[in-house]
Structures are given as structure tokens and as C-alpha cells.
């Protein structure tokens, strides 16, 4: 069988499409759905630029077939931004100057979003562990870590306030 009809939820929207067996999930997101926020870096799972959330957990979209994503709930970086407003994680990246070319940035933001959804009070060590999974060639990581701390502090404050 070379084509498959799949149904899944992307950023809260139900989507139904026909995909070919060999189509990678990242290419389905970018080419079929026009969600080009997720980036293809190495295409073998090492760089993390392609990271999306599958039922809230981080996955490498370059190491999934589109057909394997059926019936899952997927969050891409496009699903993290508010309507015309930066999410606190994105604002933290802005404020901390945590991006230059921006190629790795969706990978970091999506990863952090997943971590802070599950653990708004994530420790610095847990943040470093999470950030480990994405490579950056531009920034040297220090500002990315600062942005992660700022985002965590904002999330923890929110959690404390609610």
C-alpha cells in the first residue's frame, strides 16, 4: 500500500489528508499543511530543529512517517503563539536575544513549551536537559538558557497565581 488516508489534530484543528507511505511527517506539515515553522535541519534526528509535540511529548518530525502520526494530537510552533500575540516563551526569546538566524528557534520553543506545560516549575537542571535536545550554531546557547529561565519564571508565576 503506497497511499493512506489519515486523520489527526494539528494545533487544535482536525485535519484529514491522503499521504504517501514514504512521506515524512515534517514534509507533511510543511508541504501539505503549509506549516513551515517547523524546520528540517539534519533529517536524521540529531539537530532538533524539526521537534514538534505529539500528544504533548517532544518528537522528531523528521523521524516519523506522516502515516504514523494518524489519530494523534500535534502541536507545532504555530500552535504556541497566541492570536497576534507572542507567547511568553517567544517573548522571553525576544527579550533575552536568544535567536539570531532563527533556524533552530522553533525546535527550542516547541521543546520548552512541552516541558513547561508538564512542569511549570522545572528546575534549571531540567531546563538544561530539555535544551540539550536542540542544536544552535549561532548563539552559543547562553541566551537561550536565559530565555528558558525567564519563560519558566513566568510559567511558575502563572501557576502560583492560579
Amino acid at each position, binding site marked *: 500500500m503506497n497511499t493512506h488516508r489519515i486523520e489527526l489534530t494539528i494545533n487544535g484543528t482536525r485535519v484529514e489528508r491522503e499521504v504517501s507511505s514514504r512521506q515524512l511527517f515534517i514534509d507533511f506539515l510543511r508541504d501539505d499543511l503549509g506549516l513551515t515553522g517547523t524546520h528540517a535541519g539534519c533529517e536524521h*534526528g540529531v539537530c532538533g530543529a524539526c521537534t514538534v509535540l505529539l500528544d504533548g511529548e517532544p518528537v*522528531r518530525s523528521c523521524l516519523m*512517517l506522516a502515516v504514523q502520526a494518524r489519530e494523534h494530537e500535534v502541536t507545532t510552533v504555530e500552535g504556541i503563539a497566541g492570536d497576534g500575540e507572542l507567547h511568553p516563551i517567544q517573548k522571553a526569546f525576544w527579550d533575552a536575544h536568544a535567536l539570531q538566524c532563527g533556524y533552530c528557534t522553533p525546535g527550542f520553543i516547541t521543546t520548552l513549551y512541552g516541558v513547561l506545560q508538564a512542569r511549570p516549575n522545572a528546575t534549571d537542571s531540567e531546563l538544561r536537559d530539555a535544551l540539550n535536545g536542540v542544536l544552535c550554531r549561532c548563539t552559543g546557547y547562553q541566551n537561550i538558557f536565559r530565555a528558558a529561565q525567564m519563560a519558566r519564571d513566568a510559567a511558575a508565576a502563572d501557576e502560583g497565581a492560579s
Partner: protein
Amino acid sequence: MKPAPFEYHAPDSLDGALSLLAHADGDTKIISGGQSLLPLMNLRLSRPEALIDIERLPELRGIRVDETSIRIGATTTHAQIEHSTELAAACPLLPVAARHIGHAAIRTRGTLGGSLAHADPSAEWPTVMSLLDARFCLRSEQRGSHWVPARQFFKTFFTTALEPDDVLVEIEISRTEPGVRWAFHEFARQSGAFAIVTATAIASVEPDSTVSKIALAVGGCGATPRTYTDGQLTLLGAPLSETTIKAAARTLVADTDPLTDVHATSADRRQIVQALIERTLRDLGAPASTTRDMTR
């Protein structure tokens, strides 16, 4: 890069998968998480004509712990093992080893069975399962189920006892007695990068500190993990001391046959694994079981 064309099948039963595999025309591979297979396919180092996806088969998932054994379904993910409170209680080495595998995104999809079937001698699971003397259940349409000990499963690089029509379905480990100590040390260039060498051990240590039973396994130092037990380790019947630890590490390293590759030379691997073996044995002698990771 993108994979070459192939057919994709997702049968809804294990029997269905075994039948497809048994009657496959061309080169057919089993896939679950795909964290080892898809990189190979994306780089076109592997071009199977068909994939049989076993990820959603309920028969292959699940962690079951009872008084005598731990049974883990082959498609259980590294993340599930890492976060299992049952395993943290019954065999804490397993969640700790799981945490060393790649990054969280890899662990969400990658599976225990996939790692074992892939048989990279540097990977964590082949080494840990060899240490624990685990047994693997292989199943085929023609021959039914049979069990293979981990220590006989790995033949050479990326080669196992799996026949072309076999599927690895379950992993079984015997529970250790309470008070058995364990240690795990892995060296990688960065946290989450591929392990270069690994040393892991379990031991029964008497109240007077003498070692009554011990096993140690080394990964990344040959075509398969290497396991050493009791008599081979010259550590039984006495407390662990710096002298005996250093002597044991020296002897073991002389037996290893690490290759030189892009990650490290043979000499580097020997030197690093000798240090890891010493740290592992020192941990066994410590009052509480500990593990440290060189990359942190």
C-alpha cells in the same frame, strides 16, 4: 534526504504482522518508533521495499512486574521505561539507563525492542540486558515463540539471532534479591550523544562488604556487549578495594577489542572504559547504590 519508495503496512494484530513478514516478497523491515531505522532510510543506507508497523499492537506494549520477574513488551518506549515508577522500585538501573538514551524526543518514540533488534554494540539496552541476563521472546508464523538469552542474542555489529521472519515480542528479566547494588556509567561527547563506551554492573555485597556475586557488562568495546561474571572478575569473597578494583579493570580492558572509528580510537576507548569500569566497581562498594554520568 528522503527515504526511497516503499509499501507501508499497519496490521491490527501480531499474527497479521507475522504473516505479512513470513510471506514478504522483497526486503521487508519491522518498524515501531523508527528512531534507528528512519535515519538509515532517510540517508538511504537502508532501502526496504516494505515496512510492517507494529507500534500500535497492544500485545507488544506494557510493563508487568511481579515477585519473580519483570516483563516488558518490545514496543515499550524508552520514555515509558524512564518514567515507570514500577521499574524505579523493582529495577532502578532500567529507568537510569533509559535516561541516557539520546534526547527526550528520541525517547518518546524509540523502543526497547527496536534498540535490541538494531544491535548497535554501543547502545545502552544491549549492554544492560546482557548484564541482567535477560531473555527475549522471538516469534514467527512458522516456528511460534521461543526464548533466547540476551547473552546469546547479539552475534556481531547490527546482527542478532532474529531470523528474517521473526519479531522480538517481549523482554523478561528475573528480579534481583533486595539489596543487590547496581551502577551505570556511560561516556559520550555530549549529554545525549551516542555512547562511546558504557560500563554497568550489579553485585551482591555481604554485610561485611565481601562480594558474593557480581556481573559487569561493557558496551562499545567490540562487536557485541561483553559480560563478565563472578569468577572472571576475581572480585569474589573479598571487599572491593582500590587495589582489586584497579586490577580487575586492567584485566577486563585487556580482553576488550574496541575499534577505531570517527568517534574515538581503540586506545581512547580502552582508556575511557578502564576508568568507567573503576568508577562502576567503586560505586558497588559504596554504601548506597549511585550512578554518575561523565557528561554532566
